[in-house]
């Protein structure tokens, strides 16, 4: 009984952190990806930064955010955000870059003014890529959240796992691991199902 109560509270904490970090990563990542694909100035600035930070194992940022923001929720959300944003940026960028010129031409000759091309064509045409970026960012967010909770948190599933392990409650520890894995699995499936529902027009080429 004690386990269930603690489990639910900590699961909610972890999921909130993941949701917060992912939300920021998606909003800022999509905007940046679009800006980089359409504005050479923005691209020139961020391209080397993305290239340089891409191979960085994202959990390595945990100690850094620990120093910056302490052992706080803010730190956890921030490091999840940092881990999840790159795949969103990169996929959005490629999505925008791969929009067929002819679609834009077709829209223009059907009367769409230049300033609306983005909303009418570029954005809907790149949604499959953006969705893919989010799909990749999702497990990264889970991994980073667990890492940050192992080493720099007073709550959350990772914290609970290492707590039970430190005090030798191995049965509890495995129960928490199992729940977390199940929840991660279900969230991934649900995300994929939602994406497939909304992208059923996409022929995957």
């Amino acid at each position, binding site marked *: 009984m004690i386990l269930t109560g603690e489990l639910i509270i900590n699961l909610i904490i972890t999921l909130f952190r993941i949701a917060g970090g992912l939300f920021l990563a998606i909003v800022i990542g999509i905007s940046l990806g679009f800006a980089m694909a359409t504005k050479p100035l923005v691209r020139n600035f961020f391209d080397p930064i993305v290239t340089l930070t891409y191979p960085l194992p994202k959990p390595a940022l945990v100690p850094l955010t620990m120093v910056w923001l302490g052992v706080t929720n803010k730190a956890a959300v921030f490091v999840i955000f940092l881990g999840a944003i790159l795949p969103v940026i990169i996929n959005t960028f490629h999505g925008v870059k791969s929009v067929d010129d002819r679609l834009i031409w077709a829209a*223009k000759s*059907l009367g769409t003014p230049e300033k609306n091309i983005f909303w009418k064509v570029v954005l809907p045409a790149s949604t499959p890529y953006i969705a893919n970026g989010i799909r990749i960012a999702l497990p990264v967010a889970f991994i980073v959240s667990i890492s940050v909770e192992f080493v720099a948190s007073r709550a959350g599933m990772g914290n609970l796992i290492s707590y039970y392990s430190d005090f030798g409650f191995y049965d509890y520890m495995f129960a928490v691991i199992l729940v977390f894995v199940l929840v991660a699995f279900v969230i991934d499936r649900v995300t994929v199902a939602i994406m497939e529902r909304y992208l059923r027009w996409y022929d995957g080429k």
Partner: protein
Amino acid sequence: MGRSKISVRGLSKVFNPLKGNPVVALENVNFDVEEGEFIAIVGPSGCGKSTLLYMIAGFIQPTKGEIIVDGRRINSPGPDRGIVFQEYALFPWLTVEGNIKYGLEEKGLDQDEIDEKVSKYIRLMGLEGFEHKYPKELSGGMKQRVAIARTLAYEPEILLMDEPFGALDAQTRELLQEELLRIWEETRKTVLFVTHSVDEAVYLSQRVIIMTCRPGRVKNTVNVRLDKTLSREDVITSREFVETRHKVWVDVREEVMKHYCIVEG
């Protein structure tokens, strides 16, 4: 004779003019198109016929020369010129209905008018029952029907078609050719039809413009006088068809052989 519908004057296009290897796609192209005329443009692959069409559509700018439509020099896409691409270029995220609606909504028509036109062109192109399908669920022929319906629904005065039936199988191709002719007879729009099929050009058009290989120039113009009221069988076995076809074919073949220029580009 009155003013031409489309007038192409001294048109040239050079790609990469400032870089290492400029490619002269078109050089000093001149021709006029009358209102309601059906023109076919034929030539070997890579002769710049699509480039020519894209410039008339206003998607790319000429290096030299000008294009005049209805007395106005054009430099951007406009609602007076509708285009149909070989690869359909349907919006994959919109249904058949959504695609046909697109231009009408951009035009700002009211809902009743939109619905009426959509159902009219769905009927015209034989798309009943497919209204709520997405492009990926359709065959190539059906996709091209939707693309043509989308362009026609917008009611442009000029129809620009870039090898629209090039990716279709032979049967579908013939079927759509006949439907295009029927629609043209009904609406008498001005049509510019790019193809590399000599048969298609002669069967469909009133006048065939033959292009030279890179750089593309107008090599010859052949008038076609066929009785379009006859059935397809009767048309393609008629003496006029065979003779005209031969005339065009000799010109095109000469170009292909001269350069052997299957430098796709």
